[in-house]
């Protein structure tokens, strides 16, 4: 039976990677140019932001503008006064699972400012966003309701932001259960998966407890990323094509000025995978 036919479905999965996920816009440029249609977009953490903008059909320029205004240091500047008290006197100040060091009102405002009332139903391409349940550790797939809220949930870095409640569940960052949620596309019966994932950077030097913590966090999430990817590779019936942009410069959490460079690298990585993708899609001229 032919691998590819007119029913072949293709998905784009954008894993966690903060501002590096903008590389997905470069990939989309290539796909659009080649008239290769996408049937599903899946995003996790920072990838959710770009997955949403792609699914909503925003032109690349709009996505760039909105990300530049949304994702700045200001979203993590304001500390939660309550949180500071809760760390010192947890009993008295009712420390609970809603703890987060940073006051998330700014982040919420920015996300709403970018996505407004847009819901999953409004997307041009079906969209799924991955988060993690804080109490049972399971991956939670968000595919209905308001997009900004799903992104907020997927971006809920533990300790930093309070978990976000959706349908009664306390949700945290998707990357805690799977940094590159290819499984979501597999479950939807997708045949060809373009998987764009990013490794968390390692510390250059460990000079403080905070940096040590970041190092451990990177080590653990990178191992989880690889292991999940390995499993899905074997378990999938069809094809997973990893699109892995390489960055020669270090890209920090809020380096939005590097977005044009990041998009270029995404385009380059996409061009590398293109010949095989085209061969795979073959003479049937499949365009989703």
């Amino acid at each position: 039976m032919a691998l590819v036919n007119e029913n072949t479905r293709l998905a784009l999965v954008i894993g966690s990677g903060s501002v590096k996920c903008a590389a997905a816009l470069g990939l989309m440029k290539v796909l659009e140019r080649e008239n290769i249609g996408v049937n599903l977009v899946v995003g996790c953490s920072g990838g959710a932001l770009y997955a949403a903008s792609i699914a909503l059909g925003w032109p690349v320029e709009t996505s760039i503008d909105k990300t530049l205004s949304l994702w700045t240091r200001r979203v993590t500047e304001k500390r939660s006064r309550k949180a500071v008290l809760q760390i010192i006197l947890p009993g008295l100040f009712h420390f609970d699972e809603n703890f987060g060091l940073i006051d998330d009102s700014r982040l919420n405002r920015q996300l709403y400012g970018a996505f407004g009332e847009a819901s999953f139903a409004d997307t041009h391409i079906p969209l799924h966003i991955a988060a993690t349940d804080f109490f049972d550790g399971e991956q939670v797939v968000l595919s209905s309701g308001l997009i900004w809220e799903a992104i907020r949930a997927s971006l809920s870095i533990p300790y930093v932001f309070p978990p976000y409640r959706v349908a009664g569940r306390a949700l945290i960052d998707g990357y805690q259960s799977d940094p590159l949620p290819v499984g979501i596309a597999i479950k939807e019966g997708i045949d060809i998966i373009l998987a764009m994932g990013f490794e968390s950077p390692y510390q250059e030097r460990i000079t403080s407890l905070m940096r040590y913590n970041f190092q451990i966090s990177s080590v653990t999430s990178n191992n989880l990323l690889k292991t999940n990817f390995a499993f899905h590779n074997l378990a999938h019936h069809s094809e997973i094509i990893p699109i892995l942009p390489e960055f020669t410069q270090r890209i920090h959490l809020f380096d939005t000025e590097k977005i044009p460079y990041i998009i270029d690298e995404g385009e380059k990585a996409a061009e590398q995978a293109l010949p095989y993708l085209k061969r795979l899609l073959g003479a049937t001229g499949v365009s989703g």
Partner: protein
Amino acid sequence: MGQSRKRVALVIGSGGIKCAAAIGMWRVLQAENIPIDSIVGCSGGSLYAALIAKNIGWQELETLSRSLWTNDIMQGYTENLKASKDGSLRYNERSGLVNDAVMNRNLQQIYGELSFSDLTIPLTIVATDLLLGEKVLLSEGSVFDAIRASLAIPIIFPPWEVNGRLLIDGAVSDPLPIDVAIQNGADIIIAMGFTMSYRQRLRSMTAVQEQVNSIYMNNLLSSTYAFFNLAHHAEIFPIVPEFDEPLTMFDTQKIPQIAESGMQATQEQLPHIRRLLASSQ
């Protein structure tokens, strides 16, 4: 196609004090005369993997367990934690919140001069390179060094340097390293692993940290296990003992019950293991 006896590997994964369940597992395997051709240990599991590789009896395993987890093993933790919160703690890649003098002394008393080449059954211990994030396999030299590295819980215990690499807990890269057994050519793999329990209520920063850690560990465990299941040509028998209540490393008085859980979980898999060993395919 005929071949000689199937090669059996034992893998004991990370699980803190729950790894004492390996005492019960070893009791069953010894009683049943199941030959073990290789052993892999990770984190808490490496303690038992090394002792089993010496082929000692299960009762001695239990005695030695108690001598490891002494009350003073966490010395320095509270003071250093406080210092970390008020900014007076100096920390670098070789630091740990606990002063490891007690841990090192306890481990030396048990493993002393033991080297990998002294062991009856070939052993591999898994650790993680702190700076590169990769899994590191240790199968030569001092067993104490390997176990000390594999037990280096991040942040809590200082990393341990082996052959110029700064090593920490193996669980951070792979809590149940079945691939080592696959690579070594095992046909049947008996893998004892542990899941971490989740908290229902999160009432402190430590609780949040533990919860986040548990979420990560459990997800890593299930995806590595799933991968190895697909990748292995033969059989993997998971032995995952269940515990009614959360256990901390200070619950040394519960070691007999933990060993009992391990025994039960192993007995459940025993008929299947025996059948496969007896068959010729």
